[in-house]
Structure formats: structure tokens, C-alpha cells
């Protein structure tokens, strides 16, 4: 370990001596201090804090992300090109320790910078919060600067219904040629729509189970977070509905409220304490009072939020997940630098990063079943060619890998006051740092261990 840490501290020292740390500290400090002065918000303390958190953390992540890639590529590729690595390779240190030492050094640097900028941001937010009126402070502490757990209704498995519907259609066709895939897809969308849509004058009910959190939520405020879409846009842009929230067996305890809300955006409705029944279930009913159908998405249309912990620790866990992302970028940069020259490694790494951020494109390829000739009526490719046949499974595979990383969204969770649990943090370390980072480490170490370090002409 002495050797490994020698490499790690050397990497850290290089960043300090080359004034990278100084420059990054300046940029990060500017992000924390200057951004709040220039960003526009909705005028509320909650909106301002949410935007501040989102923008500042995003900028910090982006700055550290690019500097990590740059440093990772530079520290290894340059040392090989300038032959300093030869001096290390002739010493009794296994090459995997050199690689891991470099990675550890970058991780330490990121941990220091992320902690410093995180503390600055946290202090700034707390300071600004104390200068707000009491009511605004309460809102902030209940909705943003808090760690809130959430419950949703489980998404029902409707595949059986889809199969039943498809079989019925095939039977009804009486031997006529039928595109079974198209019928199945149609059935799936139709059944899903039926579960989401609330037609005019109809009622939709949700049962949100607090589960084991119930004993801890007595006399605690709860928040309903909802979003809906509409079939036809109204003149005012808002849509009225009657909301009933509370236990079904105690009408006196039911909260009834008629609200006019905008579509396609999230709304948070504060609920009085103890609106759950003896089983810890919160019953929510919505009656559509509009002339158009309202659609609540199954994934995020209705969600109940409750206080789970304080903001400070939640914020720290969020930073740990960001650090996991940075550690992955460090592994990516180091892996590229083991067989590429510095500029090429940096270019390739940034290319991979951009591809990684294009998950929407891969999702689209999978949904459209190809990359060319989309039928504008169905929104899909009706006849796949060889390119589509290769692209779809490739995109699906990449998407699967990317989802291992993208399923964590610490910035969004922090800005919406959502809890980032210890389990989620541990999962991020496992999935992002160890599994994904491990893949890059395996590639990087394997190549690095086989390299002829004195044959610099083999670096491209």
C-alpha cells in the first residue's frame, strides 16, 4: 500500500504544483458565488433554492468532470510520453498499483474539491435561508432543505391483459394476415392509457402505502407531488379538479379541495398530518371537472413525500454519488491513456462521455426499432434493414449499461428535497464506482501491464 499511496500522493501533488487545484478552486468558488447572482427564478425562496442547487451542483459536476477526464488522460499519457513512467516501471511496484494509484490520486483530488465546494454551497444556502421570513424558511425546510422519502402506487403488471387483447384481435381477424407485433404494441399502449386517463366527470383513486415509515410520520406534514397531461389545451392553461385525500372510513378527516392546476408540470400539495388510515395508507381521489381527459403518468403522476431526515447528511450522500460519477470518468480517462497519446485519449474520453450523455438517442432507437425510415403515422420503422437490426440490440445494450449510472440523480433529488438513502449511496458506489469503473480498470490495467513503456512510438 505504501507504493500505491506514493503514486496517489504524487498525482495529487502534481495537480497542486501545476496550479490545477488553484484554478479549479477559483472556478468552483465562482460557480458557488456568482451563479446565485445571475440565475433567474420564479421569485419564491423555494424556487430560488431549487434552481441554485440544480445549477450550482450541475456546474460543479461538469467542471470537475471535464477536469477529471483531462487530468486522468494527462497524468498517465504524458508520463508515458515523457518517459517518467519508465522510472516508476523499473521500481518494484506492480503496474496495476501504478494505475490504481493514479486513479486514487484523482479521486482524492476530486473529493477535496467537491467537499470544499459542497461546504461553500451548503453554508451559502443556510446563510440565505436565515435571512428569509419565517414562513419562507418553513417552506424551505419542509420542501427543499430536507430529505424526504416517497411512496408511489406500484405499477400494475398489465402484460396479461395485453396478451388477452392480442389473442382476441387475432381471433377476430379470422385468418386475415395480421402484424402481431403491431397489434401487441397497440394493445399495450391502449391498456396503459386506460390506467392513466381520467375522462371528464370521472374519478381516479390512488392508494399510497407509507409502509414501515408510518410510525415515524405521526403529526408530520405530508406532500402530494403530482403531474398530469391533458388531451386538449384549455384557454387559461389550468385544469380544475376536486381532490379528496384521507381515510375512506372517516369522512370527517378527509381533506377536500378544488384546485386549478397547470398541466405538464409538477405540483406539490401540502397535506395536513395524519391523513393516513390505520394501515398507513393515504387514499387520494381525483374527480376530473374539465371538458377534456386528464392523464396521470403511471411512473410519476402521483407521489407522496414525507420527511425522512435532515438536509445536511442527504447533501453529503448526494456529493458521494457525484464523486462516484467522477471516479468513473477518472477510470475512463486512465483507461484511454494507457494506449493512446494524451490529446487522442482526451478526445476519445470526451467522445465516450458525450455518447454516455445521449441516452435519449439510444432510447429513441430502441423505441423506434431502428435508426432510419420512421413511419410518421406509427412513429416506428415498419421494415428493419440490416443496420437497424444491429443498431437496436446495440442501443438496448448501451442503454442498459448507461441506466446503471443514470438511475442515480442526486442533483434532481437534492433540489426537490428527496431523500438519498444510504442504500442508494452504497448501490451507487457498487454500480458506478466498482462495477462500471471496474470494467474500465480491467481494460486499462490489462493494457498498461502489457505495454512496452520505452517504445513511445507505439502511442497513437
Amino acid at each position: 500500500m505504501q507504493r500505491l499511496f506514493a503514486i496517489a500522493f504524487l498525482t495529487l501533488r502534481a495537480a497542486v504544483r501545476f496550479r490545477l487545484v488553484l484554478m479549479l478552486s477559483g472556478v468552483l468558488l465562482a460557480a458557488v458565488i456568482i451563479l446565485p447572482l445571475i440565475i433567474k427564478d420564479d421569485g419564491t425562496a423555494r424556487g430560488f433554492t431549487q434552481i441554485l442547487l440544480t445549477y450550482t451542483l450541475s456546474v460543479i459536476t461538469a467542471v470537475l468532470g471535464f477536469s477529471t477526464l483531462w487530468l486522468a488522460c494527462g497524468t498517465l499519457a504524458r508520463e508515458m510520453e515523457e518517459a517518467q513512467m519508465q522510472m516508476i516501471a523499473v521500481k518494484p511496484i506492480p503496474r496495476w498499483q501504478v494505475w490504481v494509484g493514479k486513479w486514487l490520486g484523482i479521486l482524492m483530488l476530486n473529493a477535496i474539491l467537491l467537499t470544499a465546494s459542497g461546504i461553500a454551497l451548503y453554508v451559502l444556502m443556510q446563510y440565505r435561508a436565515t435571512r428569509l421570513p419565517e414562513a419562507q424558511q418553513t417552506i424551505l425546510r419542509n420542501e427543499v432543505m430536507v430529505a424526504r422519502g416517497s411512496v408511489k402506487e406500484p405499477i400494475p403488471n398489465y402484460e396479461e391483459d395485453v396478451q388477452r387483447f392480442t389473442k382476441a384481435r387475432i381471433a377476430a381477424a379470422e385468418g386475415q394476415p395480421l402484424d402481431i407485433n403491431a397489434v401487441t404494441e397497440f394493445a399495450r399502449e391502449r391498456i396503459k392509457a386506460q390506467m392513466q386517463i381520467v375522462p371528464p366527470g370521472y374519478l381516479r383513486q390512488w392508494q399510497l402505502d407509507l409502509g414501515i415509515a408510518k410510525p415515524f410520520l405521526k403529526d408530520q406534514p405530508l406532500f402530494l407531488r403530482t403531474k398530469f397531461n391533458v388531451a386538449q389545451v384549455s384557454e387559461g392553461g389550468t385544469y380544475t379538479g376536486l381532490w379528496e385525500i384521507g381515510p375512506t372510513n372517516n369522512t370527517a378527516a378527509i381533506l377536500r379541495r378544488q384546485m386549478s392546476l397547470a398541466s405538464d408540470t409538477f405540483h406539490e400539495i401540502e397535506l395536513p398530518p395524519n391523513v393516513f388510515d390505520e394501515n398507513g395508507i393515504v387514499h387520494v381521489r381525483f374527480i376530473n371537472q374539465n371538458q377534456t381527459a386528464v392523464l396521470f403518468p403511471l411512473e410519476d403522476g402521483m407521489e407522496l413525500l414525507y420527511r425522512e431526515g435532515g438536509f445536511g447528511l442527504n447533501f453529503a450522500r448526494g456529493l458521494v454519488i457525484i464523486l462516484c460519477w467522477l471516479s468513473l470518468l477518472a477510470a475512463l480517462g486512465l483507461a484511454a491513456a494507457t494506449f493512446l497519446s494524451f490529446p487522442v485519449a482526451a478526445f476519445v474520453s470526451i467522445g465516450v462521455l458525450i455518447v454516455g450523455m445521449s441516452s435519449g438517442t439510444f432510447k429513441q432507437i430502441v423505441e423506434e426499432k431502428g435508426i432510419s425510415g420512421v413511419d410518421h403515422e406509427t412513429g416506428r420503422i415498419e421494415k428493419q434493414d440490416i443496420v437497424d437490426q444491429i443498431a437496436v440490440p446495440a442501443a438496448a445494450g448501451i442503454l442498459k449499461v448507461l441506466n446503471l449510472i443514470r438511475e442515480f440523480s442526486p442533483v434532481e433529488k437534492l433540489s426537490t428535497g428527496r431523500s438519498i438513502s444510504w442504500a442508494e449511496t452504497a448501490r451507487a458506489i457498487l454500480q458506478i464506482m466498482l462495477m462500471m469503473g471496474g470494467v474500465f480498470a480491467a481494460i486499462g490495467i490489462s493494457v498498461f501491464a502489457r505495454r512496452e513503456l520505452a517504445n513511445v512510438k507505439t502511442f497513437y
Partner: protein
Amino acid sequence: MIANASIESTPTSDVAKENVIAVRGLTKVFKDFWGRPKARAVDNVDFEVRRGEVFGLLGPNGSGKSTTVKMLLGLLYPTKGHIEVFGHSPRDVQTKSRIGYLPEESYLYRYLDSRETLDFFGNLFALPPDERRKRSEQLIEMVGLGKAHRRQVGEFSKGMQRRIGLAQALINDPDLVILDEPTAGLDPIGCREVKDLILALARRGKTVILSSHLLSDVEDVCDRVVIYYGGKIQAMGTLKELLATPDAVRITTPVLSRPVMEKVLSVIRQDVSEDKIRIDTPTQNLEGYFLGVVQKARQSEETSGATSGNRVAAYLRGDADTATASPQAKILERLTAPTVETAASPGTQSNMSTPVEAEQIKKLAALAQPATPTPSSSPEPDKVQKTEDLTKANEKLSSLLGKPK
């Protein structure tokens, strides 16, 4: 001084036969991006290096010396052939703990100062903190960078970078020291000190491989050499084997009176024709003259650069416990340590005034014998030659440091 030094221990003859490096059929072909052969840098090379030897790799630029060195260090992989270093592959991690390497250029971290550089490399050898600190201090003093140890290596002159490079190569007290052009960029005093250090290391049973195209470096310190050209070994053997001219003899004496000279010449003319006799006055070489001038200047001038005439690190001398002796005395003692046979032979003169005489008698006896070429397959260092080398080193170092008081 010389006689006292002669009782110090040196490697035994058994140990001296131990192979530190064995190279068989070594070939290196560099290829282009498409795997097509581009250059045959080393071509079917065989040699062995034995413990305690100072082994020279000689050759013009691009002859394959550095490629061979880099294959010995595991920085390049042979296309064909086999290398063993201490009986293992050059890529064996544990073996590397016994090797010190000075590359042909400074490949050190420019942002570290001398102490940090040595501390870093000491860490790579897993040395404990106290040992790292102690060795770093001794090495910095030894290479004459005591006054510049706070400056970053990037600010150093080329010569100073060579000095700190040499120091890092010795931080682990290596059994095998591989030096690639060690005197490149050094001033004459630095060159002399490096050569003296090489001799000192060899006296402690260390094996030294010296790659150089500077013939004087190799001639001053090497026991055996190989001469490369075009990636192939063109010649190999001890310096005596390679350089001796067995059909001529040189006699050096103090200035003789004319009658004595006439007598000597008349005796010689009885057997040798006039045109084959040459008489001249020996001249001092430039290195010796330069060292004398600097030695005088040092007594009155100060310098802010690298200093010279410093003490060999105690752990490299192996006499850390005799710390009370003066530095000069220690270096001289080490450098003038005896050869095995001198210590072992009961008949050897121990009187301080007689070894030179004894040497001369031995030489004359040897010269009187018919010339018998030494087989090139026997690379054991010539012991008489070694004593001569050490005496020469001692004299030069004495002139550099002054006589111990």
C-alpha cells in the same frame, strides 16, 4: 593508507562467479503500426554479467546499447531470445528491488525538489520513513546538491539533473546498478566523481552496467566491455584483452642522467632495431590538470551550484558505524580496499612503502614471460589491473579531496 585498506573484505571468488545477468540470443525488432519490421535494433546478442563486475556497453549512437538496457529493465520486450536478471525475468517485480537505474536523460518529475524526488522513489522501494530521510540526506550530500535541495528538479541544470538521477538510482542500495550515459552533461569533476563512485560500488560487490559511447568513461572503470555496432556484438572481453599490444613494452622512470640513458638504450639496441624504440616525456592528461586547477580554486571560491568532493552515502559505503572518521578518509579507505588475493596471500607486503614496488616487480616478471593470450571466454576481472585502477582512482580522488589530515 593503501596497505591498511588492503585488509578490507571484498566479494569472495565464489560470489564473483555468480551470474547477475544472462542474455541468450537476444533480438529486438521494432515494428510499425501494421506490424511490419521497421528496425532490427538488437540482433542475436549473447553475454553474461557476473557479480561485482563493472560491465561496459560500448557503441556508437543507435547501435543497440540503450535498447539492450531497456530490455534488461523490462521496459522493452525481446522479439526473440532470453534474459535473466538475478535468475528471474526482467519483468519480475521483486527482482526490481535489487536494481538501480539511471536513464540516459532526466526522466524525473520537474515539480519535485531533490528531497521529494528521493522520498518518492524511496517509497516505491517501501523504505520506512526514517530510512528514506537518512538515505536522502546522505545521497543529496554525496551528489553535491546540498545547497540546492529546495529547488525543483525542473530548475536544475542538466548536470544537476544527472546528479539527482544518480542519487535516485542508489536510494535502494541496489545490487545491480544500470547507468545509461551517466556522465552526460556532467562537468569534469562530476564525471570523475561518478567514475569513482562506480569503482566504490564495484568494490562492495555491486554489479554495474555502464552504457556509454564515451570511451574514456568505459576505459576508466570497466572490467569487461562489449562493443556494439548495428545491433550486434562486434567485440567482447576484458579491457586488457581488448587493448593490450603484446608486441611492445613501455618503461616509465624518473628523469635519467644522460650516461644512464645511453646505457639503457645500448642494452635495448642489442635486441631491438633503432626505428622501433621511442622515447618521450609523459604528459598529464587534461582531466588530471583540470582537477588540480579546480582543487586550488575551491580553497578560495564559493559556488551556488552543485558541489563536488562529497562523501559517498554511508549505506552505500557499508560503514555507517564508523562515523567518526573524516569523510575524505572514508572515501579513500573504501576506494583503496584490497583485492581478494592481496588479503588472502600471507606473503603480501604490508609495509606502506612497498606495494608499488611489489606491483612493479610483478609487472616486470609478467612482461618477461612469453605473451600468452587470455581466452576471451574467461571474463574474470584481471586482479592486477584492478589494483592499478584502484590506485589510479585513489590518486585522482586524493588530488580532488586533498590528503586526509
